[in-house]
């Protein structure tokens, strides 16, 4: 196992003064796929947003080190340029901005040198194919009028183009039919390399049937309560979240923290 690229220690975060993360510890090395599983309200999406620096969340304690650098206090674009990436649960529609123009701007922002137009077009064509989107999507406005599944695929498209060193997927599998889940998982499998770590946040185990995680973490009440191998996900699938909550001494209510609504 290589040194972890992401090291989270005792991370506490709140929104509008309400604590949601209550001491998260997590290590993700490059080249590994980690799954973070948890019931509704366990703090999964908050963790994703806090990692990427969403301005609505306040980190009250702890550290997030990425490639050895503290990222708390860094703007989202600085984190992205450092190599972090978040695939959104609910990708934002931006009217009038063509997907291709946005992608070129993004690629040029994270790369040291601007990509040549020819290379960009080739890369875009390849990656649209990878995620199963029609070539015409490049001309469409960013997420505007995309179906739920198309939005998720467009997130993976961005992941493929931006080549981050840490990819956080926030419930990318939610709301997808089984074909959609398979396409996302296969894209992840193809992008997997010793150069990238994956953090797949999910409610369901089905994406894990297509892309096998090296480590599974269970998030409850704003903390990682258990980590293990693939078998942990299978166990969860078998007994359900309520049994796990009980196992860790939570009543249903205690385990649920209110998450800030995403728009």
């Amino acid at each position, binding site marked *: 196992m290589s040194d972890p690229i992401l090291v989270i220690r005792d991370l506490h975060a709140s929104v509008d003064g309400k604590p949601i993360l209550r001491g998260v510890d997590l290590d993700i090395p490059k080249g590994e796929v980690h799954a973070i599983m948890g019931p509704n309200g366990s703090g999964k999406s908050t963790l994703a947003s806090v990692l*990427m*620096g*969403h*301005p*609505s969340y306040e980190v009250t304690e702890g550290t997030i080190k990425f490639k050895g650098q503290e990222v708390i206090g860094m*703007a*989202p*674009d600085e*984190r*992205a*340029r450092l190599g972090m*990436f*978040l695939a*959104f649960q609910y*990708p*934002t529609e*931006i*009217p*009038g*901005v063509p997907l291709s*123009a*946005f992608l070129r*701007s*993004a690629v040029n*922002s*994270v790369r040291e040198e601007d990509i040549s137009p020819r290379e960009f077009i080739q890369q875009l064509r390849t990656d649209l194919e990878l995620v199963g989107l029609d070539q015409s999507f490049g001309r469409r*406005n*960013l997420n505007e009028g995309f179906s739920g599944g198309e939005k998720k695929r467009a997130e993976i498209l*961005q992941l493929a183009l*931006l080549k981050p060193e840490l990819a956080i997927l926030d419930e990318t599998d939610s709301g997808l039919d089984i074909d959609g889940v398979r396409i996302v998982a296969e894209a992840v499998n193809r992008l997997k390399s010793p150069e990238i770590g994956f953090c797949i946040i999910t409610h369901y185990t089905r994406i894990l049937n297509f892309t096998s995680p090296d480590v599974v973490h269970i998030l409850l009440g704003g903390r990682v309560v258990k980590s293990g191998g693939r078998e942990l996900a299978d166990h969860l699938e078998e007994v359900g979240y309520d049994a796990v909550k009980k196992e860790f001494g939570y009543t249903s209510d205690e385990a649920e923290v209110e998450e800030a609504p*995403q*728009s």
Partner: protein
Amino acid sequence: MSAITELSIEDFVAGSPDWLAELRRGAWKRYGELPYPEGREEVWRFTDVKALHPDNFRLLPPDAAPGATPRLEALDLAGVSSAGRLVHVDGSTVERQLSDEARSKGVILCDLETAVREHAELLRPRLGSLVGADDPHTALSLAAHHGGTFVYVPKGVELKEPFQALHWLSASGALVLPRTVVIIEDGANVVFNDVYDSDAIDTPTLAAPVTEMFIGANARVGWVTWQDWGAGCKHLAHVRAHLDRDALLNTLVVTLGGDFSRTWKECTLAGEGAQSYMYGLYFSHGDQRFEHWTLQDHVAPNTTSDLLYKGALSDTSQALYYGTIHIRPNARKSNAYQANRNLALSSHARALPNPQLEIENNDVRCTHGATVGKISDEHLFYLGSRGIPPEEARRLIVFGFFNQVLEQVTWSGMHERLADAIRAKMEGQQA
């Protein structure tokens, strides 16, 4: 002594043929009779009307020598090729060009004074017929107008390249009153750029241009009004168009410059099947105040109007939109749409949309809407999460906001000029 009374109407009448002398004297009399607005009137209740009083400015005598040479490259929107070009400086016409193609097809493009001498049969029935002596400013315009453009495009003539009229202003403290008369005959198809530009001027200066447009049956006309006056200028423009049967008019008002700018754009859909597409794009900064007043006047049945004005506002600037859809009793089966969208880039900028409907026939489709938004934190977070820095993210969002209007602008050169103008505004605003 007020600036206006230093000159007498006879200075403007001198050399005019009888019909024009009569028109000017009548309008002068009217100007003297009309009370100056007090600011309580509906059309002035949002505006500092005192600052626009003609007495605050210096009316230029008709024989005044034109001022400084304009920066033509700043004005030229068509690039190298145009069907014809006029350059007006402080109300005097300093350059006239017409392409051989346009000339051979019988097109006339000249300054209004030449049209008075040479094309009175075309001009006389129309001058002042759409924009008359309705209020002090239009009355003064009819009485003392000087400079401006005359365009005549005969039946069926189609020209790909645009005409351009370029208005440059350098006389500080002046009041300039150009009048433009446009006659597009049946089935003709042309595009026109009407451009207003200047450097910054130290004393308040007022341009009050009037444009009267007569569009024949089945004609297709593209018309751009581009206002980018320097600081110190005020702009009070009237553009009124009359559309015959199945005519199609595509207008774009671009407002970027000056301290104060009010552009009235009014389209009368007088012939059945006439269509008017009215676009607006504005970007205010500093303490600029822009006003856009529009009228979609549906007189005939089966007429269509579709209006979209979009504007961004930064710093402490203000933008008023006041638009009326008027469906007359006979205008059954008409479609009228009106939307005004504002993007406030600063919490001190103020957009004031004010849509109005007057519907006198129930067998019509009519929608209107107005919004004032700001750049959302979620949008910035999303773009930021892709590595795009905040300034670049804002630029993408602002261009995206304007895109709906930009994609309507298909003629050559204009798209790039608009993009440059938006970019310049965004850079200025961050400085």
